[in-house]
């Protein structure tokens, strides 16, 4: 179908990442472990306003187990 509704929700990159994640999870155990490493991202970003940095935000928030990372 030509009118896919996912385009209104997220970008093509996100679409590709979701498909890649599904593919990785469907691999056999050994290959899956190797492939999972290629999908890891611990990206953090912060908005800047007028020369001042804002709060640091995790793109994929890690599971907090008590210790939290202070914003720089």
């Amino acid at each position, binding site marked *: 179908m030509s009118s896919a509704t996912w385009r209104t929700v997220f970008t093509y990159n996100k679409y590709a*990442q979701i498909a890649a994640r599904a593919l990785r999870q469907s691999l056999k155990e050994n290959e899956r472990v190797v492939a999972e490493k290629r999908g890891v*991202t611990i*990206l*953090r*970003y912060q908005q800047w306003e007028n*020369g001042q940095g804002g709060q640091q935000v995790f793109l994929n928030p890690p599971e907090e187990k008590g210790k939290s990372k202070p914003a720089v």
Partner: protein
Amino acid sequence: MLARRTLGRIAAQPQVLGAAPSGARNMATLREIELRLKSVRNIEKITKSMKMIASTKLAKAQRAMQAGKQYGIANSEVFEHSPAEHSGKRKLFLVISSDKGLCGGIHSSVSKATRRAIADKDVPVEADSPIMVVGDKAKAQLSRALGKNLVLTFNQIGRDIPTFADAAGVADLIMKSGVQYDGITIVYNQFVSAISYESATMEVATEASLKESSGFKAYEMEEDVTKDLAEFSLANAIYATLTESHACEQSARRNAMDNASKNATDMISKLQMQYNRGRQAAITNELVDIITGASAL
């Protein structure tokens, strides 16, 4: 009487040679040299191990770079065949560096290139062109020089080999940020060889400029596909530049640590010479004192 005097003397200084009160100046220098020697030896061990680590990481990073470059080349082909009708003035600069230091001039090379590009008279860009930075080091340098232009910064990339997930995340955040631009210029370090790198730029077109180009208009495109292509090609370009910059950083760190180890080794041999001379001088003075003391009887 001689025996009692020398015995008294030796009893007075049970410490290491060179602790004689008469050679107080020499002793302080000897202690100092010893401490310095110890610390420089430790530094040399650390820089040597950092160099080893960087060399092994470089091999892996170079393989990833070769693979990533193919994405970038395939990307650029699309843009070569569909040049923009009129080059826009508003460029978004994406600066690629990393969070870690001790890697030579990687971060400053990229920051300088960005500042040069913004101040360029031949190819004028708007003075308030938005800048986005990947990596804390370049962020610190650019926030001092062009702080008003900063829009978005990223970190935690470059700890390990950059993944396509990183590149896709960055591309998505750029798209979502709602910044206005006519084209994107990625400023990164290009891998020339294992001992040299240079700053370079990569142009990425937006969906709008692709739609306008004559090459594209010759084809009947479905509405959404161009947008997908623009987003995906941005992620591709970011991935190619991330891997190449990562490889440059590892090679620069290896060279920097190699030079540091060499300098440390030179310093150690010089200090060792000084220490030995000082030690021998102290011993000679002791002997002279004893002998003159003996002959004075």
